[in-house]
């Protein structure tokens, strides 16, 4: 067996994605264990859309660095990160994290790590739009910072976005 570089697939896009197809791609890497997280716009309180703005020049690079970082921490065969931008209605997918590994804990821990980091280190901003015309920028949550900091033990050089 030859060690193969992990397959990193990062996409920042307005359009939706096919979760089944993404999972199938990770399954084909042969590790035996595929983990995933999908984030979806939650409705309620008159929300009509979540509008995601991002820093286009930076986003793809930032997500790629996160995926590479995950591959340095866990024995992964593949990482797929997809993050949408633009106006997304309740029920729409926002983000997908998928990982493939020979080890189930590696796949799921890396998935958790990546979604924690996406919440706190990816240059995206969410604005809520409501039926009555109001808009509100989503505030960063300290709980997200706390979750992300769990992964910092061995890293001294990272910054919160």
């Amino acid at each position, binding site marked *: 067996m030859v060690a193969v570089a992990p397959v990193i697939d990062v996409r920042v896009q307005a359009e939706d994605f096919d979760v089944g197809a993404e999972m199938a791609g990770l399954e084909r890497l042969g590790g035996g264990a595929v983990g995933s997280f999908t984030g979806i716009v939650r409705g309620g309180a008159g929300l009509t859309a979540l509008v*995601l703005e991002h820093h286009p020049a*930076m986003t793809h690079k930032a997500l790629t660095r996160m995926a590479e970082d995950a591959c340095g921490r866990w024995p992964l065969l593949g990482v797929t990160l997809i993050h949408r931008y633009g106006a997304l209605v309740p029920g729409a997918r926002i983000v997908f994290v998928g990982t493939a590994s020979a080890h189930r804990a590696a796949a799921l821990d890396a998935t958790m790590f990546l979604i924690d980091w996406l919440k706190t280190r990816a*240059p995206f901003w969410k604005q809520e739009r409501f039926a009555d015309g109001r808009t509100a*920028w989503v505030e960063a949550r300290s709980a997200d910072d706390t979750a992300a900091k769990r992964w910092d033990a061995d890293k001294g050089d990272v*910054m919160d976005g």
Partner: protein
Amino acid sequence: MAIEMLYFAWVREKVGVGAERIDPPATVRTVADLIAWLAARSPGHAAAFAEPDRIRAAIDDRFVGVTAVIGDAREIALFPPVTGG
């Protein structure tokens, strides 16, 4: 030397533009200096940068702290804490 500024989210809304070219004096050494200097440019800038603690930054597409030295940065982005994922 001219710097391309990028603003996102409510920073962009308050400043009123998403990008502008600026040429700060040599006394503006760090990102914190820059934020203070920008706040004097217009009422919109003043509103955007009234609470410097709420501002995050990236220089040439890398996140930095506000004590980071601008140096020969070509592009600096200022924005609220991120809320992706």
